[in-house]
């Protein structure tokens, strides 16, 4: 499978998902592009567990920048952009092993899937914190 088919289908899938989430039309192409960029990073890193982290970090930073430029909230972009990274294959394979009774493999795959999700969560958090710390138009520091 050539890489550009994967990236193209990734962008189309993210755009369609954004429509499903009632995302405002103007933001959908941006979201799709960021999704493709993030998945590209993920592919470059060989679909490894740490790849989830770095790819999501790229997505998060791109989304925060676009949010500042387009004066929308970053959540709008992140929801669509993050979806191609969600480990659906891992979940399916985990279930497959459970059903087959191969619990060793099931735990193996399940743990890798969970780590992937944890990486995504960590990266999205980092990018948010990074940008909220250096917000140019922040009124006042609110204790949180």
């Amino acid at each position: 499978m050539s890489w550009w088919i994967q990236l193209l289908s990734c962008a189309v899938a993210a755009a369609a998902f954004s429509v499903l989430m009632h995302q405002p039309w103007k933001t959908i192409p941006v979201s799709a592009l960021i999704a493709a960029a993030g998945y590209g990073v993920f592919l470059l890193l060989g679909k490894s567990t740490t790849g989830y982290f770095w790819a999501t970090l790229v997505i998060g930073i791109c989304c925060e920048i676009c949010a500042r430029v387009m004066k929308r909230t970053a959540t709008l972009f992140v929801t669509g952009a993050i979806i191609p990274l969600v480990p659906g294959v891992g979940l399916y394979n985990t279930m497959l092993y459970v059903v087959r009774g191969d619990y060793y493999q099931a735990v193996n795959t399940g743990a890798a899937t969970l780590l992937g999700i944890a990486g995504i969560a960590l990266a999205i958090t980092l990018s948010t914190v990074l940008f909220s710390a250096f917000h140019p138009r922040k009124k006042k520091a609110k204790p949180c």
Partner: protein
Amino acid sequence: MDTLATTLDAVCLASEMILESGGETYRAEDTVERMCQGLGIPKVDVLALPTGLMLTLTLEDDSSISRIVRVHSRSIDLGRMDQCNDISRRVASGQMSAEEALRALREIKRPRKEHRFLLIAASALSAASFTVMLGGSWLDFAVSFFCGALVQLVLPPLAQMRVPPVISSMFAGALTTLMALVGRMFFPAVTIEPIISGAIMPLLSGWAVTNAMRDTIRGDLVSGGARVIEAILSVMMLAAGIGLVLSAWGGIRV
């Protein structure tokens, strides 16, 4: 001049709608605080949870008024959330009075014309493209397309029948798996793995995990934890749906 009742109504409606359309709880709290600032309420305390909202407005003469709003249904509607955000921002900057805001918010709240066909097409295209992304062939694309369309066809009626979201997510997983297996019965060249993995991707709540993390990091531990549980539960039910159908499909020749 806005009456206090109008102010309270507008503020409550805005944050309630943000929670209903899947916004983070800190966004709902921020909205209340910003709107009250714009409307000249000296002090406001607000606590938003994924399932409800409590707020107390304190006026200059130290009298206070409180309200609790229960949020029953939660779905994702980024467009609606964006519109509420926009209105609250305009109120905060003084461009809009509470009464105008209330009218605008009621306009948004009204159920709009649902483009059902568009949603079904989007769901189908999304599932099918994910399948190709994960290494599926064009035949898999077609099967996955049907899976996505069928899921979107079935889920809204289930939600209308007040089936809990976790149950319908299990149902969706089972349905997808069944479709893929039936598809392979007719076309032996179909590969199951990319179809199921692709078709369940739109159902996996990636947004729930991200929102949960954002809430937790902001210090909203209660809503963050609640959302994590919601996400885990929904993923586990989805997985259960897949597993049950896989094991029921005689002797597992997967």
